[in-house]
Every structure is written in C-alpha cells, then in structure tokens.
C-alpha cells in the first residue's frame, strides 16, 4: 500500500488534499470566489475586459418573474437556462429549438413552458447552488459549437478546460459529452476527456470514466490528433482570465462558437484533477515548474507563449484529417 502511495507521488499526481491545501487555499483568496461562483458577476467583468462570453438574455431573480418568462424569451427558441451559482454543470438546461408550442432540449426531449418555469423555480430555491442558498437563473445565448468535435461528441457542448496557474496555462483538455453524461461536459458524469498538447493544441490521449480510450465510446471516432483552431489565441484568452478574478489556481472553460470563435463559458476556482488522466501527465510537475519561475510576464500573450514553450509535448501528436461529410 505504501508502495502505491510512493508510486503516485513519484508520478507527480496531484491529489485532492494536496490541491486544496497547497494550491487552492494559498493562491485563491476566499473573497474572490464570488467573482467566479456568481456567473452574472463574472460575465459582467469579462465583458468589461473585452473577453467574449455568451450574451446574456435575461436574469430571473424572484419567483414572480417566472410569469414573465414567455415575454422575456420572446421568439427565442435557442437559449440556455443555468443557475448563477451552479457547480459541476448541474441545473443547466439547453434549449435548441421549438416544436408544436414546446421547447426542444439538447437531449431531444420536449418540454413545455410550464416545465421551464418549474426548472427555473428549482434554480431559484437553491437546488443546484452550492450549499443550497437561494439563487438566480440566467438565460443566455446558446453557443453553436464548432463542428470540429461533431464526430467525437454526443449532443451537448464540448468545451476546453484549461488550468491556469499564476496566469500561466499549465494543462488543458477537451471535454466531450457522451450519451452517459447526458450532454454534460463533466468528466465524472461520464464525459470523455481528451488531453491537449500545449504546444500545438492537438488532442492527444483520452479518458472515459477513469479508463483510457482511443475512440469515442458513442460515435466510435478516433479522438487523438484533432487540431483546435487558433490555439495561440485560445491559450491567451485563458491566460487573460487570470486577471478577471485574481485567482492563482483557476480553471477556465472555453467553448468554440461556430460563428464567433472562442468564448469563455465559465471560470472555476476548484478545477478537478481528472485533467491529469486525460493528459496522462502530472499536474504537480508543471505547477512546480511555474512556481520555480523567477518572474512571470505581465502580458497574457507572453504567458501563453511561455506555456507553449514549457509544456509542449516532446513529440507533437500527428494531426488527424477530419473528413467533412
């Protein structure tokens, strides 16, 4: 048993206790949590800083406003309802269209306006928020994701999670929804995580439910070698988010919109550890390398460049030829 612990340590795996005690507590001041936990605030700050985020259609703060939901939605048939303080992708309802007076969810189910109202009321009463406090519901633009990941995701929105440490992106992965995850991009709910080579922005290895895989479990398409377009810009975007919340250890979730390019979906003050499995790499080694740096450049572009230089794979993965049907 002790031997196993030692092996984990030698492999540089970052454990939950270690992450909490050595990275989250010292680098993430508690007072800055609301900046990322409250999606309304983080959206505002991002917009002020010129970082692209999904457009806000409306906020529902009290039960009474649910009556005005139909009016608020107007003829929008393409939107996302989410709790302002949600965590782990819980409570997010994605509406992709309307049919026979009902709304169609991303998983294909039809819901009535009344059911939307019920969902919002659940959000308001704090069902999905941390600690069960009363919450607000946000209605925002649905990201029409880039077809890049069509072959390797099953409904839902694939996103790119980057761990940014002291402003330097240290590790990234693509989170691909699967049938198991019900369209959610959360690894422990069954989404596929695919590691990204920091140098090139190409997918490398992948993991699904803690198991290493090469092919997407639902579509059967190979995962490795997909190229994220404009990787440099995306890394810079992730690095810039550091200034938004002044959190030293930050998870940035970015989605690729078909028309508008990368958008920051949300920030996370306690990013998970599965990113290590997706990349088959140690987070601890990389964090230590950033800690060992004498100085960290001020400009986000330089920090992104630094990340590419420091953490590029020695052998970049072969690009995959995406066949467009």
């Amino acid at each position, binding site marked *: 048993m002790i031997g*196993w*612990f030692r*092996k*984990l*340590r*030698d*492999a*540089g*795996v970052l*454990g*939950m*206790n*270690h992450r909490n*005690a*050595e990275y989250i507590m010292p680098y993430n001041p508690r007072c800055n949590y609301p900046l990322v936990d409250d999606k309304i605030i983080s959206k505002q700050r991002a917009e002020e800083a010129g970082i692209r985020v999904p457009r806000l259609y409306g906020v529902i703060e009290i*039960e009474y406003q649910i009556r005005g939901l139909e009016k608020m939605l107007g003829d929008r048939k393409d939107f996302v309802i989410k709790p302002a303080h949600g965590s782990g992708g*819980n409570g997010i309802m994605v509406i992709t269209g309307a049919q026979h007076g009902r709304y169609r969810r991303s998983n294909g189910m039809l819901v009535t306006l*009344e*059911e939307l109202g*019920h969902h919002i*009321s*659940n959000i308001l*009463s*704090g*069902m999905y928020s941390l600690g069960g406090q009363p919450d607000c519901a946000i209605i925002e633009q649905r990201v029409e994701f880039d077809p890049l990941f069509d072959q390797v995701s099953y409904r839902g929105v694939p996103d790119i999670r980057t761990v940014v440490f002291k402003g330097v992106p240290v590790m990234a992965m693509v989170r691909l929804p699967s049938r*198991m995850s*019900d369209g959610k991009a959360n690894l*422990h*709910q*069954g989404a596929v995580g695919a590691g990204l080579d920091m140098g090139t922005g190409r997918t490398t290895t992948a*993991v699904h439910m*803690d*198991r*290493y895989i090469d092919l997407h479990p639902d579509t059967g398409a190979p995962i490795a070698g997909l190229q994220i377009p404009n990787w440099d810009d995306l890394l810079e975007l992730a690095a810039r988010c550091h200034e938004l919340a002044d959190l030293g250890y930050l998870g940035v979730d970015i989605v690729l919109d078909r028309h508008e390019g990368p958008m920051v979906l949300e920030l996370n003050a306690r990013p998970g550890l599965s990113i*290590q*499995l997706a990349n*088959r*790499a*140690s987070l601890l*080694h990389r964090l230590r390398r950033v800690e060992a740096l004498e100085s960290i450049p001020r400009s986000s572009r330089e920090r992104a460049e630094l990340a590419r230089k420091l953490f590029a*794979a*020695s052998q970049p993965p072969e690009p995959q030829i995406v066949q467009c049907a």
Partner: protein
Amino acid sequence: MNKLHLRLLALGLLVLGLGTTWYKVSVIGLPLERDAQTEIWTVEARITLNADDGPTQVGFAIPNNPPGFNVLGEAFVSGRFGLARESDGINRTALWTSRRSSGNQSLYYRIQLADDRADEPITVGAAPEFPERPDYQEPYASAVEALLDEVRAESADIASFTRRLLLRYNSDEPGENVEVLRSGAEDDLEHTRNIIHILAGARIPARPVKVLELSDRLSRGSLKTYFEVHNGTEWVPFNPRSSQRGYPKNAVVWQWGDDDVLRLSGANNASVQFSSAVSAREAVRVAEQRAAQRGSLLMDFSLFNLPIQAQNTYRVLLLVPVGALVMVLMRNVVGISTFGTFMPILIALAFRETQLAWGIFLFTTVVAFGLAIRFYLENLKLLLVPRLGAVLVVVVLLMAAFSVLTHQLGLDQGLSIALFPMVILAMTIERMSLVWEEHGPGQAITQGLGSLAVAIVGYLVMFQPMVEHLVFTFPELLLVILALMLLLGRYTGYRLTELWRFRHLIMNKGAP
C-alpha cells in the same frame, strides 16, 4: 513557519490532553477500564460504657489518614453526647462529653476506607530524637548488652537490625539472654514495649502502633499492637510477633504512640469492639471522593457532578467529536464520498438506539420508500421547500406505519425507528434523488452506500463501550482529537480512493 505553528499547537493540545488524563489516572485514580471496581472497607467501632451520675467524658482515638488507605467518609453516632474532634498532628481523637448521663451507653464511630495504590513512606509526626540509653538493671543489663552485640554483628542498617533483633527475640529456641528479657512481658502491648525498651539500648527511636486488621464480616475485633522504628527518614513498621516488616495489606493504623485508645472520665466498664465489612463500589465514585479529600479542583469541574440527565446527554454528545474524527479520516484519508458532511454521524447516533442490523434495515427501507415518493412528487412540479416539507411528512408517516406494522407482528425493534433524525432522512432522500437525476443512479447508490458505510464505521467506533467510557471520564481526550484533526487538516497526501482513480498513471509512468 505556518506549519511549525500548527505542529506546536497540536503538540500543546496533545500534551495538555494526555497530561490531564495521566494525572487523573495516576493521582486521582480514575479507572481506564469501564466498570472498574474498588474495594471499600466499612469499619465500625462500638464503644459501650457505664456512665456514672454526673459529667462524663470519653476520648476515643480515631484514624488519621492511615497509610495505604483513602478515607472516603466517617460518621459518629453520639446519642446524648456532644462531639468534638481534636488532633495533635499525629493522632485524632473523638471527644464525647455529656453533662448528665447515667447507665449503659453506646457510642459508634464508622469510617469508610478505600485501598490506595500509592505506597508512600510513613512520615507522620516530627522526626524523633534518639532516645537516651535506659539504665537497665542486672541481670537485664548484661542480657540486653549481649543480645544487642549479637544483632549488631549481623545487621547493616536500622531496619535489618530491628528485624534480626525480632527474630532472635521471638525465636522458638531462645538463648538464656532472651529468656531473661522475655520474662514478665506476655501480652501484646507489654511484648512490644519490651522490644522498644531493648531498641532504646541501641538508641533506635521506636513507637508502638495500634492497628486494626480488617477482614470481611469481622465482628468483635480488637486492635493489635505493632511498632515502628525510625530509620532517619521514615518510620518502618514491624510486626512484633511474626517479626515481619511492614503492615499487612488490610491493616489500618488506628493510633500511633503509647496512649490508650479509649480514655474515660466519669464512666466505667468501657469496652470497644471493632467490626468491618468489605464492599465493591464503582472506581469512579471512589476517585471522586478521593479527589475531594485531596482538595483537587479537577473533579469539582468534572462531568460526574452534573445531574444524571445532563450526564446522559453528554455521554452521547462527547462521542460526536469521535465520530467527526472518523468522518475526517473517511473523507480526507480514505476518500469516501457521502451525502452531507456530518450526516453519517447523525445516522450512527440513531443506530445506537436501534442496534446496528435493524438500523441499517430501517434506514434503507425508509430511504428507498422515500425516494419512490420523491420521484412521484417530481411529476407534480413542486417548489423546493414545500417539496422537502412533503417528503418530511411522508417520512414521518412511513416511520409511524413501520412502527405500527412491526409492533403488530410482535417485533419491538420497529419502535426504535422513531429515534432516526427524520429531517436528516428527508434531506438524504432529497439529495439522493437530486444526485440520482443529475449524475445517474450509479452515483446516487454509490454515495448512499458510502454514507451508510461511514455511518456503520462511525457507529462501531463511537459506541465501543471503552471509547464511551474514556471520553466521558476523560473529556480532555477531546483535545487530543482536536490535535489530530488540526494535523489532518494539513494532510496533503493522497486519498486511498485516489490510488484507484489514478491507477493508470501509476501503471504507465508516462509523465513528461
């Protein structure tokens, strides 16, 4: 720096907690084991006398902190006599006086004694002067001289000198010298005085001691005479007949010195009879009384002084930190995920009343039924708080139905379900159904079983009779738990479940 601070704090708490515990065990004598018993001796002295007309005064020597015992309490039955107690620093005396009493009178003195483990030297009374060498008469003088010379050659110090002397003096085949010395000193007191007299020839200070040898159901007992010699630092007791050094285990020193135990004026025909009996009592109670005798404040502020009802509450309450420690270990070191942070502890507390097997059965049944109802309520699209309330009502109804049903079947265990914290059950059901919807049944069942497993482990640890006894008798052990928690708070190592989670990263060390 920060880490050092924490370690020092934890160390301080550990030392404080363990130190207080050690003090309570070794000095006050609180038992580490549960249900430990201590022998209690009840000794009674009955004085009968025939009072003359006119004023009567009875002086009766009573024990003064007898070595090897703790005095738990004493009582006097004085009849029409007035009572005063006197002490001369070595002995205590009960002084009964009456202005006008006549005829047969009985006075009683009762003392309760507990064995004291401490084996302290006897230093009662000021260090004595060396006695003057007595002016022995011939042929006594030469016999003493000869005996002392023989003994001196065989001994090393005062104690061994005394022992050699006693052996020779009590020998079955005494020499001529001893025969001379022994003549005319037959009874115990005379015998002892004689020995002390001889010891004075070697300038060894000695004093007679009146001792009561206790035995269970002793009645009509009387005092025996021992004596002590002073070796320069302490008094060393000897049995003048058997020549044995030291007092036997159950011997109470009643009076030091040569005075009479009973002194009378205005009365005649007095006699004293001693009786004793042994009984067992909870060691905890004895320790309390002992602490009171020693004037230790520690036991005044102990939980044992609370009313019984409050005590019973604390017996359970003090176990919660133990459960919390289990919780911390299970979550941060083992890495089991549970519903709510401390919910499993509350479940474990409920198991205490229901017993484990029934507890598990009742818990799973209620949660399963509750879940079914909760999924039905989901269709009605209720708001969160009313829905929680509805689940709560259903839970209470389920519990009532369960109790009635099992009672009808003649199973009384079903009644204990009422002790389950129903709000906790309702919350569990709600959270479980949420996890069920959000993360799938697998996650929900894993977490449910996790909670149950932690509750079971918590129950098994918390309700060890030993643990229950220790935290209640030594609440300062909670400081030790606090220290452990502080240290665990900075535990940055892996969790046991992470071994499994990251097993692939260990298998192929592909870390760049």
